[in-house]
């Protein structure tokens, strides 16, 4: 029984299909990273899994059953803006949420996750606010945990602490679905689902998503001239330190651009990054 089973789901708004024939599963204990450009359909998909939007076609089953109000209790959701009351303390937030879900107190999970005192949530560091939001969303012991940009804005160490909490839940058997724009964070997931234009464009490990794609990299003292020449040719160009990268797999074409501009350079194919792959999949 998969915690999440999305089969052939489409959601239209008027004539526009925000999600178009998407199938996605999340297993117990698995962390799935949902990535894609804005407008790719990630938010619409998450809203349907949460039961806030109905699919126009296809079916969604949670824990082997059709979606229902009772099942919502088995989901913990942390939205990007955290969903906390900033003018209440952490304890008050946990207590309020515990009452809504009808669970006993919040102390157990709360004290384990948050040692942030009794100040108002609005006065805490962003990292502590995020920890508090995790505590609030998991104190009813959900079997499915859905997170939207879970570590945005926090320091690297605070980010690693948050991922420790996420991974602990997964090791306890919770299914985790994480939406993120941060590609290095996406690599924390066991499996990536890449959405583009409402559909699943790629799926698997980081290496499987990149799928051997390559990028042309130019090394030259005249990197600024090289950048200008390649940009002038209309190719998609970026900078990594003093090296110029071009979203192309043709060394010959890029070399020709540079020759025309009279620029001597080393031009070679290198492995594409996940970011570059995302951009390729989106156009």
């Amino acid at each position: 029984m998969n915690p999440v089973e999305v089969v052939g789901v489409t959601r239209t708004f008027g004539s526009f299909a925000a999600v178009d024939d998407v199938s996605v599963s999340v297993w117990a204990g698995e962390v799935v990273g949902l990535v894609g450009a804005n407008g790719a359909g990630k938010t619409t998909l998450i809203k349907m899994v949460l039961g806030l939007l109905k699919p126009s076609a296809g079916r969604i089953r949670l824990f082997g059953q059709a979606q229902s109000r009772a099942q919502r209790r088995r989901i913990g959701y942390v939205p990007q803006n955290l969903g906390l009351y900033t003018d209440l303390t952490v304890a008050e937030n946990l207590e309020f949420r515990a009452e809504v879900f009808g669970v006993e107190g919040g102390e157990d999970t709360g004290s384990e996750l948050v040692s942030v005192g009794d100040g108002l949530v609005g006065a805490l560091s962003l990292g502590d606010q995020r920890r508090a939001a995790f505590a609030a969303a998991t104190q009813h012991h959900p079997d499915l945990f859905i997170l939207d940009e879970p570590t945005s804005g926090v320091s690297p160490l605070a980010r690693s602490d948050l991922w420790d909490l996420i991974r602990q839940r997964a090791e306890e058997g919770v299914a985790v679905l994480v939406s993120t724009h941060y590609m290095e964070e996406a690599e924390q997931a066991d499996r990536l689902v890449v959405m583009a234009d409402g559909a699943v464009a790629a799926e698997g490990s980081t290496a499987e998503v990149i799928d051997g794609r390559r990028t042309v990299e130019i090394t030259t003292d005249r990197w600024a001239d090289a950048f200008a020449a390649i940009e002038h040719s209309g190719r998609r160009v970026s900078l990594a330190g003093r090296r110029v990268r071009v979203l192309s797999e043709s060394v010959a074409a890029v070399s020709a651009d540079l020759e025309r501009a009279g620029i001597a350079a080393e031009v070679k194919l290198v492995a594409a990054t996940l970011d570059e792959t995302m951009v390729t999949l989106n156009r």
Partner: protein
Amino acid sequence: MTWAVSDLRVNFGANQALDEVAMSIEPASVHAVIGGDGAGKSTLLKVLASLNLGQSGTIRLPSQNRVGYVPSSGGIFADLTVTENMEFVADAHRLRDWRPRADLLLARAALGQFGDRISGRMSGGQRRKLAGVMALLPQPDLVVLDEVTTGLDPVSRMELWRLVAGAAADGAAIVAATTYLDEAERASSVLLLHNGRVLASGSPESVVGSVPGSITDCATPSNRSLAWRRGRRWRQWHPDDGRADEGNSTGGGDITLEDAAIVFELIEERRSR
């Protein structure tokens, strides 16, 4: 011209927002300022944009009208069209023959076809890109960008960076604060801030190379307080292991700037305890 700040201090009441910060800013280069919330990134960038925060220290910066600054939110007039926003900047800086450059910058940012669009009605990514274009229009010597890519999707981010890289290729010095360390890895230099102090600085490679001890990749860490997750596996820092000149590559995968930043934060945590 190389710009620089050193021994920079900013206090907000009793709170030391920046403490002995030093940074050298080269033309035709992208400098990334990294760190979490409350690290002092925005404060440093405001100083670089010549805003008066009561700062002290040695400060050598271009005059304020030669600095392009994009704050962490806003930077555009939401009720004006894209073209009107550009006209406003051109007017304020008394620019002449600016339209070809405006067209080039808008094209670099994939905003070429949105001239008549009310800017407040565009997507978040398009608004951030427009703010970047407006800051770059007067061809500033120094461009200061405060988390312009935070929350943007990968495609908008790439377009914004293409715009910024273009300005660097044209000779501008760029300082960009970001919490995305994969972005910082593509900069010429990075400055890691934490509680107003510089924990590490230099090229991304040198910051990674300057981690003391060694970092290993393992299935189960022997010391959880010195370890962090990488998917199902762990990375662990061994402070007293290996020699500094041996490098610190792991058995499984390269050490990233994110790994290095975690270690420098761990070191700071131990120091301040």
